[in-house]
């Protein structure tokens, strides 16, 4: 059922103002090209969820696309804080940002529950932690056998999931390998899914029987965007551009510098630029 289309078409079909959106990829395979497309199309009032908002949501938040953020770790890993996210939370710039904050375990379990069609996730968590006090979406259930109190959070069920993967076949079956993160869960939890891939190949059959594959009937659109994860990386294709992650700290440090960078690289860029970006890092 997956259609292989250009990225702008897939985003235009799936992502509308006010939608809830999960763009996942745990450090690896972050769908940056797709996020740029969402920004270029001027989407507004989005609810975005991601364990690690990272540069990808720092950019979307800084460009004013986001009304609400659901997350568990908002840093530039190994580098520092996310300056556009901070500016939104601390100063309401460019608009107020509602946040719903969880732990990684809660978010991972909540995506898992979404994929499993459950209304909530149950796990052992948050004990002695203060997030419970400030997040009404952290509740509890009691084990009917032991009496143990367990944490419960609502399942994450985004309108749209967007991920990046190594490859798809011509039917639109998608292969993910390496650090697989929560992408399978995000796609299965979502009402619609877009997958950007490095390439389309004839056939995925005959590979190892247990690879992480999303069958074509779980994906709506497949878009070929070589390099589409840059500055994140694609296992087997190009490495993480750690230098860019470090540079981002300065780019995002002030509003004008950020806007100038976004204007040049995003508003006046396109998915076709990513092959070059990623190539730089090889």
């Amino acid at each position, binding site marked *: 059922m997956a259609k292989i289309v250009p990225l702008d078409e897939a985003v235009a079909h799936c992502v509308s103002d006010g939608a809830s959106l999960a763009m996942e990829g745990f450090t*690896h395979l972050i769908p940056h090209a797709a996020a740029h497309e969402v920004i270029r199309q001027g989407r507004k009032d989005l609810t975005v969820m991601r364990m690690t908002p990272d540069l990808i949501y720092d950019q979307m938040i800084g460009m004013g696309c986001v009304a609400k953020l659901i997350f568990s770790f908002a*840093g530039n890993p190994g580098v520092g804080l996310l300056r556009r996210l901070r500016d939104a939370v*601390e100063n309401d710039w460019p608009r107020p940002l509602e946040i719903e904050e969880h732990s990684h375990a809660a978010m*991972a379990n909540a995506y898992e529950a979404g994929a499993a069609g459950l209304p909530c996730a149950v796990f052992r*968590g948050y004990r002695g932690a203060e997030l419970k006090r400030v997040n009404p979406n952290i509740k509890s259930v009691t084990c009917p056998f032991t009496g143990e*109190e367990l944490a419960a959070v609502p399942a994450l069920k985004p309108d749209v999931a967007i991920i990046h993967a190594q490859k798809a076949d011509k039917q639109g079956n998608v292969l993910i390998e390496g*650090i697989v993160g929560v992408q399978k869960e995000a796609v299965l939890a979502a009402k619609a899914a877009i997958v950007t891939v490095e390439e389309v190949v004839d056939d995925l059959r005959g590979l190892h029987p247990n690879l992480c594959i999303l069958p074509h009937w779980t994906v709506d659109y497949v878009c070929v965007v070589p390099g589409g994860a840059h500055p994140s990386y694609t296992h087997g294709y190009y490495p993480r551009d750690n230098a860019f*992650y470090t540079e981002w700290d300065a780019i995002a440090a002030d509003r004008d510098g950020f806007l100038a960078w976004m204007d040049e690289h995003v508003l006046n860029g396109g998915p076709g630029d990513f092959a070059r970006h990623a190539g730089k890092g090889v």
Partner: protein
Amino acid sequence: MPEFKPAEMMTVAASRALSNDDVCFVGIGAPSAACNLARLTHAPDITLIYESGTIGTRPDVLPLSIGDGELCDTALTTVAVPEMFRYWLQGGRITIGFLAAAQLDKYGNINTTVVGDYHKPKVRLPGGGGAPEIAISCAEIYITARHQKRVFVDKLDFITSLGHGPNGEGRAAFGVDTKGPTKLITDLCIMEPDAETLAFTVTSLHPGVTREAVRDETGWEVAFAESVVETPPPTEEELKVLRDLQARTKAAHAG
């Protein structure tokens, strides 16, 4: 005694606290350096797990992020993130969890969420990430932090993850039966919780560090154990391996 920096002493001291049989849940930064230093020196078979899903990883350079390709390339296997948190962390399979801290109190409770009020923060910090469940699920916790008054505070602005309780009431009060923070390793000293009060108590001073130096950089009234020893300085080998690792890492991340 070779010359070394306080941060190097901290990393070396942390690495020595690890053994070949440990299964470590490793955070980025000083924990990652310490765990890999242990692996490259006295604990070659130590199991290192990063929350990105990589199990039994042996990176040649330190990762900048929790999910650099190097971690997966050198891992025994890489699992999905929900499995990592369910089977491996919550399943109780981790012996040592390593946490860093933006703020910590004398009971090993940690704040990495906000400075100021949660809803109107002065500084919005990254948040907990894996820490709230690392803190309760690992058999024990080591904390590493540079010893500074603004980090070692008397009262946290927010409790991101549980130590021995905000009033030292102990973890059982929160339904938690793991040991919690058993070591706090800084660039000045090593602290361990007192058996009675559960408050961090200095048990070892790094070479050349005075009690006053520790007091000056600690936001609570520092206790010292009955016998405080001097941390053995880094050996030539420890320093060489650590510096080589950091040099390789710097070169790799320059891009």
